[in-house]
C-alpha cells in the first residue's frame, strides 16, 4: 500500500489535535493503517502544535524534512515556517487569516506579507490551496470550525486514502454533538473552496 505523509501545523488552541483525531478515526473506519504523533504540552501557552499523520504500510510516526506529501496549515505564517517539511511534489493547504504571534506585537519580528507568502509557497511546491478559513467557519456558524473547513479542503484533494464519507462519519462520532451540524457545514465549505481553486 502506498504511504501518504501529512503534516498539520497550527497555533495552540486552533483545534489541530481534533482534526488529527478525526482523520485517524476515518482511517480506522476505512481499515487503513495509520500512525500519528504530536507534540503536546505547550499548546495552551500559544506555541506551535505540529502533528504528523502517516497512512499506509509504515512504522514511523514522524515525518522528516522534505518528506510530507501534504501540508495543512491553520495559519499562514505557520505554513511558511513548515515549508522545510515540503518537497517539490507537496500540496500545501493553508488558512489565510493571520494570527500574528506576540513577538510581532512587542516589535521583535515582522509578520510576512500575505501575498508574497502565497507566491513563495506556490513557487516551491506543486499546488497551493489558500483561502480565508476563518471566514468560511463563520459562514458555517462556528468560528472554531477552522479545522473542519481545512479538513474539507484536504478531503477534496483526494490525496489521503480516505473517503469523504468516512471523514464525515468520523466528524459525526468524534466531535461534540452540539457542533456536528456546523462542523459538517464547515467541512463542505472547505471542500467546495478547494474545488474552486482546482
Amino acid at each position, binding site marked *: 500500500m502506498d504511504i501518504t505523509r501529512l503534516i498539520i501545523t497550527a497555533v495552540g488552541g486552533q483545534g489541530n489535535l481534533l482534526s488529527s483525531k478525526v482523520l485517524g478515526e476515518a482511517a480506522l473506519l476505512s481499515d487503513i493503517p*495509520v500512525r500519528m*504523533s504530536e507534540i503536546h504540552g505547550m499548546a495552551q501557552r500559544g506555541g506551535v502544535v505540529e502533528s504528523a499523520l502517516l497512512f499506509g504500510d509504515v512504522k*514511523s*510516526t514522524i515525518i522528516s524534512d522534505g518528506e510530507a506529501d501534504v501540508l495543512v496549515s491553520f495559519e499562514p505564517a505557520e505554513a511558511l515556517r513548515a515549508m522545510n517539511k515540503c518537497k517539490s511534489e507537496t500540496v500545501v493547504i493553508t488558512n489565510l487569516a493571520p494570527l500574528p504571534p506576540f513577538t510581532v506585537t512587542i516589535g*521583535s519580528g515582522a509578520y510576512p506579507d500575505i501575498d508574497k507568502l502565497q507566491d513563495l509557497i506556490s513557487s516551491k511546491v506543486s499546488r497551493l490551496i489558500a483561502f480565508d478559513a476563518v471566514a468560511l467557519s463563520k459562514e458555517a456558524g462556528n468560528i472554531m470550525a477552522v479545522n473542519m473547513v481545512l479538513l474539507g479542503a484536504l478531503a477534496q484533494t483526494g490525496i489521503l486514502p480516505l473517503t469523504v464519507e468516512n471523514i464525515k462519519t468520523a466528524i459525526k462520532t468524534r466531535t461534540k454533538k452540539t457542533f456536528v451540524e456546523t462542523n459538517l457545514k464547515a467541512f463542505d465549505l472547505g471542500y467546495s473552496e478547494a474545488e474552486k481553486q482546482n
Partner: protein
Amino acid sequence: MHKLLVDNPGQKSLLLGNEAIARGAIEAGVAFTSTYPGTPSSEISLNFFQVSQESDLYFEYSTNEKVALEVASAAANSGVRSMCVMKHVGVNVAADALMTLAYVGVKKGLVILTADDPYMFSSQNEQDNRYYGKLSGLPILEPSSVDEAKEMIIHAFDLSEKLQEPVIFRTTTRINHSTAIVEYGALKERITKGDFTKDPFNYVTVPAVSRRLHVKLLENYKKSEELTNTSEYNFINGTGPYGIICNGVSYGYVSDAVNDLCIKDKVKVLRIGFSHPMPKSVIRDFFNGCEKILVIEEGEAYMEEAIKAIAQENKITIPIAGKTEDLLSRLYEFDPALVRESMAKYFNIPYKAIDKPDLTDIPEIPQRPPNLCAGCSHRATFYALQKASEGMETIIPNDIGCYTLGFMPPLSVGDFLICMGSSTGTAGGFAQTTDKKVISVIGDSTFFHSGIPGLINGVFNNHNFTLVILDNETTAMTGHQPNPGVDMKGLNFEGYGQISIEKVVKGLGVQHVTIIKPYKIRKSVEAIREALDFKGVSVIISKEPCTLYEKSLKKKQRKPFYVSDKCKKHKDCINDLGCPAFFIEDSNIKIDPAMCTGCAVCAQICPENAIMPVKDN
C-alpha cells in the same frame, strides 16, 4: 464508562501511546498506581486517575516521584500489582528508593515507567534512563510502537513476578505521544487488597541484610540474562550480510528504511526490546554472517558499548559502529531520513535524497514561543517583583512549571535552574557567596515536590533570601493535576486532605511570611519590598488560581478590558507585561476581548488610566 475500562476483547481503538500503556496495565490487572506528573508521561496517570473514579483501581498523585515509588513498593510487597509512572528526570528523584528496592524486590508485579524525552521537548535534559537498568540491576523493557507498548506492559508485570523484582519500562516521547490503532485484550481481575508478612531479615536493609540481598539481586540478574536471551522482544528480521541492531522508535525508522532503500535481501535486523540485561547469546549468534554492524539507538551508546564488549569476549572483529561523528549522534531524537541516510552511508547503498525546495529566499518568520497565558497570575507577580526590586542587583533562581516561561523578556524573572525544587536550595548558595539580593521563585506543586527541604536548609543555616511561592492552586504546566495544597472538596473529589503552604512555611520557622493577591499590584509591590528588606529567609505566598484552569472549570469570568481613546501609546502595557491579549492594529493598541481575562494588571500600570473594563451593552 471510561474507554479504557471497556471489556471488549478484539475491539480496535485509536489510542494515544499513553492511553495504550494505561490500557495494557489495566488489562494486566494493575490495582495500585501512583505518579508525580511529568511530560511526556502525564496522560498515563490522567487515565488512571479517571479510571480510579469509576472502578476499584487505586490511583494517587504522590508528592514526588520518590514517594510515588515508595508507596508503590509497599503495595507490591503487600501482594498488589502496582505501577509507578514518572518522566525520566523523575527517576533521579526516585533513585534512592529504586536502588535498594532492587535489593528487596517485590511480591507482586511492580512496573516503574520512565518516560524519556530525547530532544527535550518538555524537559531540562535528555538523559538516557537505560543506564538505570545497569545501575540498579533491574530488567528494562522498551517498546517500539504504541501497539507493542500495550502488549509489553502486560508482559512487564509477569516478568516482575517471575523475577520478584521491579521492572523498568522505558518509553520515549514518540511512544507516549504517538497514536495508533490498538486491539483490546481481555481484562484481568484487579486484586486490590493483599497482606504484608513480616520478614525483617529480608526487608530491613541494614548492612548484614543487604549483603545477602545483593547476592540475591545478582542471582536474579543471572535469571534475567536467561530470560532476555529467550525473550520474544529480542527478535531478528531478515537475513543478509548487513547487521542492524536497534531499539525503541528507531526500529520503526529502520524497518521503513529497509523498504525505502530496497535492501530487504541484504539486511538482518535485531530489535532489542528487553534491553537490560542485554541478550548476550542472541547478539553473539547475530554476529554470524554479518560483514558489519550498525547500532541504531537514540540517546547514549548503551547498546553499542554492550555489543562491542560481547564481540570482544567472542573474538569477533567485524566493524561495529553507531555513535560516531559522521553517523549517529548522542544528541536529540532520530527521524526516518536520518536513519535511512546513516544506513545508506554505512553500508554503501546508493541513495538519492529527496529533492527539497530551496528555502533560502523565505524571510525570517517571527518566533512563536510559548508565553504565559493572558491574565496569568504569574505575570502579575513577576511584574510586582521586578518593580519591588528596581535598582537592586538581584539573582533569581527559578523553578520548574509554567512560571519558568517568565525568564523571557519582558518579565525576565529567572536566572538559574537545574531541577525540581532547586530554587530553594540554590538560593542559599547564591546568598552566601554573593552580595546580591537573592529572590527565589517556585510554584505550589514544585514547593511540595522538593522545595521544602531547601527552605528548611535556608532557615537552619540562616541564609538571606526571599522565596516567592506562586500558589495557583494546581499543577498547571502538566495539565492541571492536583497537588497537596489543592482544595479537592471544592473540585468535588472526596477523601483528600489539604495542606496549607502558609502553615508549612510558618511551621518551618520562617519569620517573615506575607500572602499577596498578585492582581493588586501596588500592595503586592509593597509587600515584596518589605520581604526583600528582611534579613534572613522571608517568604511571599502569591495566591491566585490559574486562569486557564478557572476557565476550564467554567468558573465565573471577569469582564474583559479595552484600551480607550485616552491611550497615548506609552506602551507600558505591552513592553512591561508581554500579555498576549494585546495586539497592534493600525498603530493602535488593542486588547483581544476573547483572550482578556479581566485581571486588570495592565489597567493599573497604564500612566493614562486608559485601560477600562468593557461596559455591558
